[in-house]
């Protein structure tokens, strides 16, 4: 893998972005006349309405962690998928196919359970 090239272009884009930001700062000018109202965050025309602790639904956490679990299961399918034909040619086809079917059955059971237990329900 051309790691050197990837690192080079990453740094290049980073520098490019920084230059763009500074250019826009230079041509647009920084906020000279400021006031409390100007520096406020956006609110629909009224003074800022913010509770002390904004609560965000635990659903986001649940979604993210279920994503990780299913993502790992999908990642395990990648080497299996890329080697599937070679496994068939080498005669290990039925064994590998069966092992993945069992794995997929567990996967499907997990997904079915998540849907049935209403863990994926958004209201």
């Amino acid at each position: 893998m051309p790691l050197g090239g990837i690192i080079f272009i990453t740094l290049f884009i980073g520098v490019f972005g920084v230059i763009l930001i500074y250019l826009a700062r230079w041509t647009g000018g920084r906020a000279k006349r400021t006031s409390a109202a100007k520096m406020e965050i956006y609110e629909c025309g009224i003074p800022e309405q913010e509770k002390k602790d904004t609560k965000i639904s635990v659903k986001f956490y649940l979604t993210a962690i279920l994503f990780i679990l299913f993502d790992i299961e999908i990642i395990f399918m990648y080497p299996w998928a890329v080697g599937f034909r070679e496994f068939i040619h080498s005669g290990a086809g039925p064994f590998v196919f069966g092992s993945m079917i069992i794995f997929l059955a567990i996967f499907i059971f997990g997904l079915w359970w998540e849907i049935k237990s209403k863990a994926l329900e958004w209201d």
Partner: protein
Amino acid sequence: MTDAILFWFLALVTVCAGLSVILMSNPIYSALSLAMTMVGVSALFVTLGAYFIAGVQLIVYAGAVMVLFVMVLMLFDLKHEIQAFTRGKITGAIKIASVGILAGLVVGAITLGTKAIEAAKATEAVAGKTYDNNTMSLAQNLFLQNVFGFEALGVLLLVIAVGTVALSRSRGGTHARD
């Protein structure tokens, strides 16, 4: 030569990102630094010729696990945490203790690492291996030799999913008040 420069550059970036995980006072910065560490580790895997593992490191750790961490940290109001991490005698003591544990880990890692290198040098067969199709050898290892571990992992992931759903349902902790 260029490979060596590349390795030392990546190692420096990874170690610096790792250090800033524990040195930053803002938990968000720490989490982002940890994500950077994961990206660095992935690049180090590439220098070892383990391309698929590097991609998995990027997808699973940098793209999934650390996104979860950052998301969860952003769910909370962090002002108290920043204060808690920047002053106080107890946290100071914890910091010193952590440094001690870290030093122990570093010493242990170096000792074990040198032993592992010696062992690897003893079995010279590893060095002669070509890395052209290591995804296939990974697949063989996973689906032929260690297939029971693979299936057990599926069950483990299922158990984690069930546990997560159960935990998010429980009405203890901060939810008990309302």
